[in-house]
């Protein structure tokens, strides 16, 4: 029972925050912060073989002000860390971060003086992808997981309240 009954199949009712979450998760504008060899894997995911565009994450935006999904792809050195922080701060809310590969996620095998031991020391991260480099399937999985997460977010609640559920 509802408006659909009266008006037929031309309309459906929903909540505003659900519509907004739905449109956010199917139109992710990405900022690829590519610093290392994982970038090749990112390109492969973007290209026709795996085609990230199927999930609405179509165009990379090379201005942080136009992007809402930050891909940190590759090793982040301590020299680079302030730049990454600045790029993140320039992005407008709502924004999400995917850490692509072990180097970005934990420093990987670069346990040394120069490398940040995980970018969550600098910026908050929504999804970590393991692998050196990750398989494209893992990257697609990460994007789907992030979409689930965005779908559960509301314009009324703080992002900190939202977890991930299958």
């Amino acid at each position, binding site marked *: 029972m509802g408006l659909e009954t009266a008006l037929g199949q031309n309309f459906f009712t929903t909540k505003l925050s659900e519509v907004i979450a739905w449109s956010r998760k199917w139109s992710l504008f990405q900022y690829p912060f590519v610093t290392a060899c994982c970038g090749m894997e990112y390109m492969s995911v973007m290209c026709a073989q795996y085609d990230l565009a199927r999930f609405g994450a179509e165009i990379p935006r090379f201005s942080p002000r136009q992007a809402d999904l930050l891909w940190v792809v590759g090793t982040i050195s*301590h*020299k680079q*860390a*302030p730049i990454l*922080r600045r790029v993140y701060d320039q992005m407008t809310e709502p924004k999400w971060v995917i850490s692509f590969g072990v180097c970005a996620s934990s420093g990987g095998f670069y*346990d*040394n*003086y*120069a490398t*940040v*031991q995980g970018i*969550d*020391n*600098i*910026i*908050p*991260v*929504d*999804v*970590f*992808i*393991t692998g050196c480099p*990750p398989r494209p399937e*893992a990257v697609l*999985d*990460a994007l789907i*997981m*992030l979409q689930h*997460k965005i779908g559960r977010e509301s314009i009324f609640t703080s*992002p*900190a*309240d*939202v*977890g*991930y559920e299958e």
Partner: protein
Amino acid sequence: MLSERDAVVLLRDTFGPAVISDHEFRGDVTVFVHRTRIIDVLTFLRDDKRLLFDMLIDLTAVDYLHYEPETKAERFEVVYHLRSMATGARIRVKAPVPEDDCQVPSAVALYKIADWLEREVWDMMGIVFTGHPHLSRILMYEEFVGHPLRKDYPYNKEQPQYTIRERSTDRQPVWVR
């Protein structure tokens, strides 16, 4: 055409006691010279018409901190790899540098490429190249304290330029395995 061995003989004739020692391993000739005469030696190797080592392939340094004193008298060695474009010959020149007086004359006036290479050696090893036009860090950031490739620098001692975030407010990150 003179071989690398002849270059060593020429160096010994010209510089006498400034040439400490030399050895050859599988065709690669190494000459040890006193650091005070290194610029004279490099100039001779570059400009002598019989040698013409006009290309500085590499300039680096080695830290022999954990070696016995009888093996390595000084802690550091600055290494110059030279090549002659005319003859194809190659030679390696090494200059021992003591820890308490860590400096070597700069070779920038001889080889322009020495500019960045000497900055790298200064950055990583802390060896001062006297007479370098602008000896500053080239790989690490200016705020970095110490020289990370020295054997007594802890290999994983980080010097972050930012404060480590408090992660308790993160929105429950997910791991894709």
